[in-house]
C-alpha cells in the first residue's frame, strides 16, 4: 500500500484522559468517525468500522492510555492486516498543562515504517506539521505553471 499519507493535529481544552475516552470508546467513536464500531481495546484486538454500507475490519496495534492508540485498516479482504498491506492510523495525545491536550493523528502505509530510524527521525524533523505546507507550496507552484 501507500507511503506516508497524512499528519494532522488539534489542540483540545480537556485532559488527556477525557480525549482518550473520546477516541477509544465505541459509543464515542460513532459520534466522530464510523457509524458502526466494534472494538476490542487491546494490542492485537479485532474490531470493525462501518461507514454506511461500506466498512471493514480493523486490528488494534498499540494501546497505551492515555497517550498512544493505533489501529490498522484498509487491508485486503481475507488477509491479516500487517506492515505492507494496510494503513496504520496512530493517535498521539500530549498533555499541555492539566486541562489541555494536543491530539495528533498520522495515517501511514508501510514505507514509512520500513524506513531506517535515522530516516524516520529526519522525516519527523523536516516535516513536523509541514505536510500541509508542502501541499500548499505545491498547489501554489502548480497554479503558476501554464497547463497543457
Amino acid at each position, binding site marked *: 500500500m501507500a507511503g506516508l499519507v497524512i499528519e494532522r493535529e488539534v489542540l483540545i481544552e480537556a*485532559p488527556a484522559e477525557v480525549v482518550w475516552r473520546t477516541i477509544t470508546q465505541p459509543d464515542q467513536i460513532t459520534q466522530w468517525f464510523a457509524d458502526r464500531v466494534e472494538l476490542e481495546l487491546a494490542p492485537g484486538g479485532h474490531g470493525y468500522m462501518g461507514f454506511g454500507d461500506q466498512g471493514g475490519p480493523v486490528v488494534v496495534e498499540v494501546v497505551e492510555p492515555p497517550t498512544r492508540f493505533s489501529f490498522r485498516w484498509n487491508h485486503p479482504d481475507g488477509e491479516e492486516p500487517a506492515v505492507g498491506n494496510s494503513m496504520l492510523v496512530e493517535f498521539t495525545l500530549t498533555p499541555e498543562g492539566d486541562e489541555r*491536550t494536543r491530539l495528533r*493523528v498520522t495515517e501511514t502505509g508501510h514505507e514509512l515504517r520500513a524506513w531506517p530510524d535515522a530516516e524516520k527521525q529526519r522525516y519527523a524533523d523536516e516535516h513536523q506539521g509541514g505536510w500541509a505546507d508542502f501541499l500548499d507550496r505545491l498547489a501554489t507552484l502548480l497554479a503558476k505553471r501554464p497547463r497543457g
Partner: protein
Amino acid sequence: MTGQADDELWSAIGDPSRRQVLDLLVSHGEVSASWLAGRVPFSRQAVSKHLTVLERAGLVSRRKEGREVLYQVQADRLDQATRAMAEIAAQWDRRLAAVKRLAEAAHAADKNRRKREEEPS
C-alpha cells in the same frame, strides 16, 4: 477509505527525498538529473532512482534533447495526487474537530458533576 490508484501516487510522494526532487522540478521546469543532483543532499544515483519511481507513478516524464535527458513534472497527475491527499487531510481535520467538540463537552460535564458533588444542597 483509499483507492488503489492513489496508492502508487502516495507511495511515490511519501518519501521526503522524492518530494525534494518534485519541488525542484515544479519550480524549475525541465531539467537534467545532473542539474538536480547538484541541488540535493544525496547522490546522482539516488536522484536517478527517485526519478524512476516518480516516472513510474506518472508524476514525471522524460525527453531526450541531444545527449541530455531532461525531466519535467506532469502537472495534472501531481495536481490529482495533491488533491487526493488534501481531501484525506480535510477528512481528518473534520474528524479531529468533532473529537475536540466531544471531549470539551465531556470535560465540561465532568467538571459540573464534580462541582455538584462537592456542594451538596
